[in-house]
């Protein structure tokens, strides 16, 4: 077991830069999620760590060992692929044994490791079957088993759940989490699914267009997104983002977007005035309250556009001062479309981004 360090990794295919100065550190046993839209370079980054792809520059260090010149087989890693990549001509048992045989482990060790992995993943009765006789979820387990038996320093997962249906994905997610807790080994997990990232990750790395935008715990990423992209990418329904202009001076914050105007008094005194026409105001749907909160808040009046009933929650689409907003609230059967509505947003829940960068408003509201 070991952590890893990536130092200024760059990768280009021809003239296309797919990874730009990626530096990242993970400690021993950490669950790191690489999150981003397709084409952001997250899979390429994983493949560089695996040694399946060579970086254009920069360095990969796994367990205090620079592995840049080592082929995948010598990096002491295991990888679970999106398409499972089980060897179709071998039985499950042979699939699990393959990597151990290549490393010339004794038969006794191989038997023991396969037994342990089969027990952990509950795949005992599948051992003598061929991959084509397995369901998607079973194949996924075997693919994980093949990684586990090797006892590698580092586990790499390339969107391993994206081929499963929603229900199975949810249960495999939980199993993966348990697996990580039991094995305590460093894992790198690539996904475009923000729910997987939030639930599995101890450290989330949000990427876009070959850059790392933000590294943080799920809470940090969710509550303090560094820019509007991260803010919109995490959370479901996505954060309400209103584009407009902002003026911060003295004790006042003013935000304008067409008819939508906002003037707030802060608790701190802002020394240097900030003014920008490229500002974004962000409000998470669950932070739009329909009951008056006790803390200082902002009041929005408007009317209901659509109500979506999710059973446990209602998603209320409302229009206030020509802005379309989404609110997630507790159910209330009396809400009807076109009814007038008053909504409240606690001030410390507002996110303000100026020129694509977060203004730490929480400093101003205590």
């Amino acid at each position, binding site marked *: 077991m070991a952590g890893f360090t990536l130092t200024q990794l760059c990768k280009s295919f021809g003239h296309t830069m797919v990874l730009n100065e990626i530096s990242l550190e993970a400690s021993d046993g950490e669950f790191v999620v690489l999150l981003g839209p397709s084409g952001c370079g997250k899979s390429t980054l994983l493949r560089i760590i*695996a040694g*399946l792809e060579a970086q254009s520059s920069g360095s990969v260090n796994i367990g205090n060992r620079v592995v840049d010149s080592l*082929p*995948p*087989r010598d990096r002491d*890693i*295991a*990888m679970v*692929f*999106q*398409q499972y*990549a*089980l*060897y*179709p*001509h071998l039985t499950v048992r042979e699939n699990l044994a*393959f*990597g151990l045989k*290549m*490393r010339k482990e004794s038969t006794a060790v191989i038997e023991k490791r396969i037994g342990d992995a089969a027990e952990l993943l509950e795949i005992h009765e599948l051992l003598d079957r061929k991959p084509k006789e397995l369901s998607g979820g079973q194949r996924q387990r075997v693919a994980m088993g*093949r990684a586990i038996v*090797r006892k590698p320093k580092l586990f790499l997962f390339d969107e391993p759940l994206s081929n499963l249906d929603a229900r199975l994905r949810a249960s495999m997610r939980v199993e993966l989490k348990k697996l990580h807790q039991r094995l305590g080994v460093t894992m790198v997990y690539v996904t475009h699914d923000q729910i997987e990232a939030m639930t599995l990750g101890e450290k989330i790395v949000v990427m876009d267009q070959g850059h790392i935008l933000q590294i943080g715990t799920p809470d940090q990423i969710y509550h303090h997104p560094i820019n509007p992209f991260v803010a919109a990418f995490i959370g479901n329904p996505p954060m309400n983002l209103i584009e407009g202009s902002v003026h911060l001076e003295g004790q006042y914050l003013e935000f304008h977007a067409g008819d939508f105007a906002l003037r707030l008094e802060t608790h701190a005194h802002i020394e240097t005035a900030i003014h920008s026409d490229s500002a974004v105001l962000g409000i998470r749907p669950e932070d739009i309250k329909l009951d008056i909160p006790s803390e200082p808040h902002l009041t929005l009046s408007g009317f209901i556009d659509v109500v979506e009933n999710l059973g446990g929650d209602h998603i209320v689409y409302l229009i206030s001062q020509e802005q379309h907003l989404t609110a997630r609230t507790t159910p209330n059967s009396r809400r009807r479309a076109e009814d007038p509505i008053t909504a409240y947003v606690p001030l410390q829940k507002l996110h303000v981004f100026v020129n694509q960068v977060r203004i730490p408003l929480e400093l101003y509201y205590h």
Partner: protein
Amino acid sequence: MTKPLPERLMLLVGIVFAVLGSLLPFIWFVLTSLKSQIQVEAIPPTWWPDGSLEFYYSALFDHELFNYIWNSVIVASATTIIALVIATPAAYALARIRLAGKVWVLGGLLCVAMFPQIVIAGPVWQILERIGGLNTHWGLVLPYVTLTLPLAVWILATFFKELPVELEEAAQIDGCTTWQALYKVMLPLAAPGIFTAAILTFIYAWNEFFFALLILTDPAKQTLPVGIALFQGEFTMPWGEIAAASVLATLPLILLVLLFQRGIISGLSSGAVKG
């Protein structure tokens, strides 16, 4: 979905005609081979043979057919093995590795496969004479390998392309070198393609007549097609023996194809439907 009866009947008749049409010459040879000399020369010709095996005996022992069969086995097997040993890594490289001008290599191969034999007959003969390959088996295997390689490479490259890259990458992470990944994972999976390429190569080498005639003039070295063609003497046309020998020459191919039928079918139809 079942079709209406008239349509099915027409289909059946069509199939029977097609099969009979293509089998007729062969059926006639089989019948002829089982006749006696008197029946062969009878006018009008008789259809049903009396089941005499005299032509088989004569072909095998008077005309030394075993010798030709043995030569053919050597030449066809050697061609198949050498062609596949070369074609497999070549096809793998063409299918997998990012190479500049790959399209040109594949296109070039296809062009080579289309050369009329007569165009290269002269140069081949001259080269073989220069390096002492005339009247040797290896001298025949050499052009055979050259001529069958393009097809074998194409078939195998198609196969390798269809195998998911992840399998190979999984193998590499599991501890394989590129070569080990090729022969431990990719080769077993490409087995249908390898069978197909092997059988087509073998059939080509087994049936080939022109180069065999050109290169092998020593009867002790000649292969089946040439040997059988030279059964006829200056004044004789031993139809019965030729028929019997032809049947014996064809049998191994039929057996081979039947044996590997399933592999070949999936081989030839691969690429048509993603499986």
